[in-house]
């Protein structure tokens, strides 16, 4: 029985009670991403703020339809990046991407990834990695647009 390794309680909690969900105004950029294999979709809005010359993620709001993995992952993503400097948030995103590529072999950095370490089990299922990355990829895209094409 490997189901529990994928569907950790943390994931199911985020799925049932997503954090930061709903689209909010104002925002700097909005993107709409789909997973073409299943039709899962997410709309992500990003608001950035200049704090002493550094871009900080002020808010991430989203609306989506999809499986527990994609919805929970988007919820965890919003928890992790809101309030972070963009550079730091991108680092977290990269660490999550690495974790998803690890085929279940990685020892994730819990200090950096917090609740997102619960997705380690998902990385053993190639068909589900896209689900876990849907919200993250949309957030990265929206952030890049909010920065006006500059590097994050």
């Amino acid at each position, binding site marked *: *029985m*490997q*189901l529990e390794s*994928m*569907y950790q309680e943390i994931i*199911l909690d985020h799925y049932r009670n997503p954090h930061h969900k709903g689209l909010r105004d104002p925002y700097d950029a909005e993107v709409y991403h789909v997973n073409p*294999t*299943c*039709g*899962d*979709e997410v709309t992500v809005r990003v608001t950035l703020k200049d704090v002493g010359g550094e871009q900080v993620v002020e808010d991430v709001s989203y609306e989506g*339809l*999809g*499986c*527990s*993995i994609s919805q929970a992952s988007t919820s965890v993503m919003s928890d992790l990046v809101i309030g972070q400097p963009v550079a730091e948030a991108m680092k977290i995103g990269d660490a999550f991407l690495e974790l998803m590529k690890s085929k279940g072999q990685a020892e994730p950095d819990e200090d950096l990834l917090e609740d997102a370490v619960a997705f380690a089990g998902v990385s053993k*299922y190639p068909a*589900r990695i896209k*689900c876990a990355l849907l919200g993250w990829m949309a957030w990265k895209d929206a952030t890049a647009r909010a920065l006006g094409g500059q590097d994050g």
Partner: protein
Amino acid sequence: MTFDVGQIRKDFPILDRTVRGGRPLVYLDSANTSQKPRQVIDTLTEFYERHNANIHRATHELGEEATEAYEGARLKVARFVGTPDETEVIFTKNVSEAINLVAYSLSNASSPRADSNPLALREGDEIVVTEMEHHSNLVPWQLLCQRTGARLRWFSVTEDGRLDMSGADELINPRTRLVALAHQSNVLGTINPVTEIAERAHAAGALVLVDAAQSVPHGRVDVRALGADFVGFTGHKMCGPTGIGVLWARRELLEQMPPFLGGGEMIESVWMDRTTFAPPPHKFEAGTMPIAQAVGLGAAVDYLTEVGPDAIREHEQELLRKALPALAEIDGLRILGPTTPENRGSAISFEVDGIHPHDLSQVLDDRGVAVRAGHHCAWPLHRKLGVQASTRASFYLYNTPAEVDALVDGIRYAKQFFKV
């Protein structure tokens, strides 16, 4: 021979394996691709071990054997779908290519430089499809309309997953040039009234293309009785290898149609500035074809013929008579499409309240039950039915009533697991 599912299962080596840590495989994804019997696997091996050569152009014994095997497969396929003329059978790599072949040939015919080909499409012409089409019988027509200025129209689908015939008189009219539709829906299982639609289309002077990917594997299909002008189907869904599909078309159309792909073996004579073409079917088979795969498809057709298409249909109907009510009994489960076996094939798509299809299929997979989750390459149909995605269980000749139970038990377990 009497139909014995236990005997049939012995022909499919893969059904013996276990998955996900020792669970017996319950394969309910045959509408996606079917499993292969030993007879087909052995034919592929034997071809490569004993007869491998290129066809039609090798002047040696192996070449003769390979050519005979390839052309023999064409003959078998022709007989299987009821045409006495095997030159009406064109090998392609799959149904998508079969349909694209027709679509590109029609747009080649529409080129202003194509000597007023009677098949040419013009602005104002109409192509009719249905809302239940697989993307492979929709996107090629969208593209063809973009290239030619023809207009795409469609039959809508009713709540219960049948074609809405109420607008047929207006939809199929003198402007209609082609009606393209699925024989059997890959999502709903619905069997469409192809013959009736073909009669209307022909009365209006239109051609009819039938996507038979989901029907040819599961019962007797006679392309002529169907009344179609083009019929596409694919090997890998009918116990054959991947990489080999079929376009059947009426001979006179194949003669009128310009080529799709140019290259080796499709020519009659070539100069630096022009080419004349081989007669059908070779006019449409450019380059080295999937030879072993065609031979493997021939073996699959032999296999299905021996088991008997009618017996396969009846076996699947029996599974349907068990599965449809058993699924409908599950709280919160909604079957998409017809809920009774009449005029229906054995693919059953459904949604379960509170469980996304990906999550449901993951739980089923953990128990060894292989199904498909998503929109099954029929996104507009899912939009129409107000469903984002669905789970699909599809049955074939090797499935058993016990596997229906495994599916139902798995869904009930998923409901407990996700507490819905």
